[in-house]
Structures are given as C-alpha cells and as structure tokens.
C-alpha cells in the first residue's frame, strides 16, 4: 500500500465514493465525491499531538471495538496517506467550535473545520472493481451465544486479539477477565453453507483461517488446547493439506459436528459447548475459555447511496457476487467492456487468489490502455436513422448502455457506440420499426434460416432459438457427453436470446412450425447483464397474443439452459419431442390461416408497422 501511495503514476483517492460512471471503454467518466477529512492530508505529519489532546474516546472500529480511539485519529498504522482524519460525528468542535484543542496544538495548522469535501470528475480508460467483502454478522441469529456471552468472539475479532498491532499487543486475552485462555474452541461455517442462516455458499477462506489461527495459538501458548467443530474441512489449495496436518499434529482436536448449544458458567464465565460428534455418534460436552466463530463472507457493495452494481450496471449471480463475462475465458472481465474485477467482489477468496486476480485485472486494463484502441467483434448493432421514430426503446433496453438517448424535440436520433456494443441484439429485437440491424445476425439471415428449416417435413421439427453462450453450448455439452435426444430439434444460434425478435417466431408459425422453442441463459448467467429478462417479457407478450388469436400458447416454449446443463438440454428435447406429437396438422393449418389476416407482428402498433413498411 505504501508503494501505491508513493507511486508517481498512481493517484489515490481515499475517503471517497464513486457516485456515477458514464461513458464506455476507454472513455469512462467517473464522478467521485471526496468526503471531508477536516485535516489537510498533504501537511499532516501524523505526529499524534492532536489525538493526545482530544477529549473524545470512541470504540475503535479497526480493533473491532476492543480498544478506543480519539475523535481525531489515524485509521490504522499502515494507512495511506499517513494522515489523521477527524470523525465529525463524534467531534465536539463543530458549529460552533466548542473544543478545538486539536487545532490549537497542530503546529502545521492542518485542521480545517470548514472542509466541505469536493466532487471530482475523472476521465478513466478502464475500471477495476475491488470493493471486497464484509463478514457475516452473527448477531443476526444470535448463533452460539454471540450476543449473550462476551467470551464468544468472531474470527475477525480473534485476528485483532492475536495481532502484534492489536489492542492487547498480540497477547491473547479473553474479553471478560483479560486472562490468557487455555481452552479455545472454533466453530466453522457460521453464516455459511446454510439455506436458512446466512448464505448458502462456502465462504472459501474460513477453514484455512481457522487452521492458521490454531497454529498461531500453539506457537505462542504451548499449553493451550484447541478444538475445532466442523462440518468438513476444505483444505484444497497449495500447501493447505500440510498446514491442516500440522495443526492436527500440534494437538488441535477436530470434532466433526456443529454445536447444538452453548451455555456460560456464571461464576467462571467459561463456556459449555454441547455437540454431537457425528464420527462417533456420541454427545460431547466441552468446557472452553473462549469460543471463536469462523464467520462467512458476503459481497460488499460499497458505502454510497448506490451499490457498485447500480453505478456500473453490473449483473450478479444469485449469491450477490458480480458476474464475470465468462467463467473460464474472461474470469476478471465484466460483461461491460473496460471493467474488470479483483478480489472478493467476484467470489470469496483468500489473499493469494485475490492478488492473482488483481494482477490479471491490472494486466487486462493495461493491455487495453496500452493498445490505445479497442478491437471489437464485428457483431454490433447498426442504426438506420431514416426509419427511426425516436421512441427510445433501444436506449432503454440496451444492457451495456451502448446507445445514446434520442431527443424528439431536437430531432436527435439515438446513436450506437460500437466500442461499447456487446452485440446481444436486444435493441434490434425490440425496435418497433426494424431500424436497428445486427451485423452477422440480421433479420434476413435469421428469417432465411427459419424458412430453410421449415421448407420440408415441417411437422417433425422443433424450431429452436439457442443463445450462443448457454443453450447452444448446452447442446454441445449434450453432444460431447454422448447424451441421446431426438433428432427433431433444429437450432438457430443467436448471440443472446434477447435477439429473438417476435417477428421470427410469428414467421415460423406462419410457415407452419408446429413447435418453437426460445432458449437462453439462466437469469443469473446472462452474458449481457439483463438482456434475458427482455426475452422473457417478449415471449410472454407473444403467448398473450397467441391466446387472443386462438393459437395454443403451449406451441411456443421457453427454457433456460446453461452451458453445463447438457443433461437438461437432452431432457427438454425429449419432452418437446413428445409435445410435438400433440400438435396436429389441422392445428398448424388453422394457425397459418389465422396469421394470414395478421400483420407480420400481430399486435404491433399500426404507426410502427407503417413506418417499418414505408
């Protein structure tokens, strides 16, 4: 961090929040609010004179509340910049200055009670998101007596207690009597891997953190005994198994089972932990001096009014961590070009993995900036302003904000930023006047595929639109896994299911398709952030229209299949093959007859259709 602070080409904005980011790859513009520090950081020498005279003492957040700090303080010893900050919420010296002692003793005259902060507009070429994580709060469920017993602490609190720079200068003491604990227990998976308490996923770091902490205890206190209560120990990384073995060899007892009850002896303040040892099947009671809860990790979304997801238009998985552009090929890239991830914002990970990912993200960002130009895939949208009615739909649906807004009054047409366009085609599918065309996935190309598929033997075919990243890859997976499914399926690949225009579906029914399937990524996997939601809305609209026209909606099917779901792909195709036999030639003929009287897209507004056909 010191190196970063001293680097001539790195500008560090601490105590600041990103409020808004606009623009696109290579041309982002970030609005950053620097919160008031009330101390001129450049002049402050961290002499500590101000803190010595400050009469206010509040719990120190960095030390997890085990010690106190003053209202003017250094956030932590290695803080960059090494300058004090005034906590105005607790300071006595504002409006009017009631105390002002810090200002009196500061030789450098660094204290500025009138600091208002500032708003900065910073042009940036690429962005690395590294907002980190926060730990699970065990107060939420009062698990294991955390709120009732002072000698039950979290792993973060333990980390401060045993740290040389901690509140007890590295001497492990228990909170109630400041005596060195001799019997220490650790409970694993607190707030992790639970559908009802905390989060359902594994927090990745807790097992090895506990192993490390047991080793630290035995290094410092040879007479201490440690017991770990666990579901299963996940020591998967390089050297981790050795570390785990060393912990066992040092005398740490690993009990397979999580405590059912924790009580406190009111006289000694010792803790009595009842646990079922699932290895032996016996109920055990452990008398401990201290219990450490290995709390899980949760994504941290920033401290500002808006979350980082909202500011940067990022999509996230169901567990709340941001979604990468591709889990294998682009693991540090956001779906929006020019944005990269590092650390726990993407998933829970340890220091080594975070540093690896941060290095990768920095390299990706540098690569981009060093090139000075952006090479994009030729699958981008094109806009023909002659037909555009400036309705604004394209701007609204674009998941990567690649279309500038139109303005009817000023006769300003929308325009497509090709460097930012990801090529999903949602704009083209939603455009009511067919003003937008997609390179390589044009309407004419897709309609020609529909026609070719239905030219012969149409009653035995399931016309399937599959998105490139998930459903199509799911089909590949089914194939490479040698899974059997009926040969009736005919795939039309689009980059995203968002590209599937209503027009394609109606055209297929008009040509006598018995069954049409639209398939794409699961909502949490969508490679174009939320483009898949537009697919669902569109299909729902077509279902509704089909029902009104007297066409059975079940002939249009919708399915979300991920790249790993080869089995699901095969199962869906088998089910639809069964479904296909329920569509009669008479039903198909009747559909054709109904649609003959309808415009190309039934239900689309007359103005839009007129503009499209003009």
């Amino acid at each position, binding site marked *: 961090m010191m190196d970063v602070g001293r680097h001539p080409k790195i500008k560090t904005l601490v105590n600041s929040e990103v409020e808004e980011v606009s623009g696109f790859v290579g041309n982002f513009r970030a609005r950053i609010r620097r919160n008031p520090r009330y101390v001129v950081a450049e002049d402050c020498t961290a002499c500590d004179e101000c803190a010595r005279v400050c009469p206010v003492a509040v719990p120190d957040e960095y030390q997890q509340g085990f010690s106190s700090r003053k209202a003017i303080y250094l956030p932590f010893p290695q803080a960059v910049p090494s300058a004090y900050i005034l906590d105005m919420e607790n300071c006595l010296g504002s409006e009017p200055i009631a105390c002002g002692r810090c200002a009196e003793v500061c030789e450098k005259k660094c204290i500025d009670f009138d600091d208002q902060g500032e708003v900065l507009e910073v042009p940036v070429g690429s962005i690395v998101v590294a907002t980190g994580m926060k730990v699970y709060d065990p107060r939420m469920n009062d698990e294991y007596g955390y709120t009732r017993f002072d000698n039950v602490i979290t792993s973060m609190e333990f980390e401060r207690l045993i740290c040389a720079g901690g509140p007890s200068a590295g001497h492990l003491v228990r909170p109630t009597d400041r005596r060195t604990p001799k019997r220490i227990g650790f409970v694993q998976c607190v707030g992790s891997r639970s559908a009802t308490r905390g989060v359902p996923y594994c927090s990745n770091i807790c097992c090895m953190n506990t192993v490390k902490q047991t080793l630290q205890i035995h290094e410092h206190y040879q007479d201490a005994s440690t017991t770990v209560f666990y579901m299963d120990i996940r020591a998967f990384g390089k050297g981790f198994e050795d570390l785990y073995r060393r912990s066992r060899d040092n005398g740490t007892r690993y009990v397979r089972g999580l405590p059912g009850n924790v009580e406190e002896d009111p006289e000694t303040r010792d803790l009595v932990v009842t646990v079922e040892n699932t290895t032996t099947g016996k109920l055990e009671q452990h008398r401990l001096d201290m219990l450490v809860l290995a709390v899980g990790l949760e994504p941290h979304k920033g401290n500002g009014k808006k979350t980082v997801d909202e500011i940067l238009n990022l999509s996230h998985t169901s567990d709340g961590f941001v979604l990468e552009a591709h889990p294998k090929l682009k693991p540090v890239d956001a779906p929006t070009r020019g944005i990269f991830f590092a650390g726990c914002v993407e998933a829970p990970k340890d220091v080594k993995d975070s540093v690896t990912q941060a290095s990768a993200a920095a390299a990706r960002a540098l690569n981009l900036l060093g090139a000075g130009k952006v090479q994009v895939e030729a699958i981008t949208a094109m806009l023909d302003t002659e037909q555009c009615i400036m309705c604004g739909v394209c701007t609204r649906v674009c998941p990567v904000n690649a279309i500038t807004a139109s303005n009817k009054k000023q006769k300003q047409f929308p325009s497509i930023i090709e460097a930012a366009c990801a090529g999903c085609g949602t704009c083209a599918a939603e455009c009511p006047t067919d003003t937008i065309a997609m390179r390589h996935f044009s309407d004419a190309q897709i309609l020609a595929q529909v026609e070719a598929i239905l030219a012969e033997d149409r009653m035995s075919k399931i016309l399937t639109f599959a998105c490139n990243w998930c459903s199509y890859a799911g089909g590949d997976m089914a194939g490479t896994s040698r899974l059997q499914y009926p040969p009736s399926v005919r795939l039309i690949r689009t980059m995203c299911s968002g590209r599937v225009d209503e027009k394609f579906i109606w055209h297929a029914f008009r040509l006598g398709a018995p069954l049409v399937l639209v398939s794409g990524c699961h909502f949490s996997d969508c490679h174009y952030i939320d483009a898949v939601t537009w697919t669902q809305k569109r299909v729902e609209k077509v279902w509704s229209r089909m029902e009104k026209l*007297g*066409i*059975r909606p*079940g002939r249009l099917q919708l399915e979300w299949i991920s790249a790993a779901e080869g089995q699901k792909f095969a199962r869906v195709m088998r089910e639809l093959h069964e479904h296909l036999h*329920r569509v009669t030639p*008479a*039903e*198909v003929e009747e559909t054709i007859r109904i649609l003959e009287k309808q415009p190309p897209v039934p239900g689309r507004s007359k103005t839009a259709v007129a503009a499209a056909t003009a």
Partner: protein
Amino acid sequence: MAEMKRFECLRCDHRYMAEYDRKVTVERTCPSCGSNSVKLESKKPAKKPAGNTNTASAKG
C-alpha cells in the same frame, strides 16, 4: 408490490400460485416439471385453440 397470482405451465399444464410483481421480471420454473414455460394465467377465457383436438391436457 408483489401479489399472489395463478400461473400455468405450458409443458405439463400444472397450475399453481406464486408471487407476481409487474415491475420485476424473475426466472420462473414450474414446481411440477421444472420447465421455464410458465405463463401468467389470463383472467379472460381464451379463444378455443385453433384446430387442436389433442392438447397436452388430453395426455394419456
């Protein structure tokens, strides 16, 4: 504001109640067959499907 609405599965014809919020689009899955072809049941009775004499409900 979410409210309970009736949904029908277009794969297995299963009907069930689930939360629905007009402003939020969520991935829907039929609790019976696992299909994503889940449609919000319309209030008005639909026209009789054209020419179909062998619908999914007549399965078996």
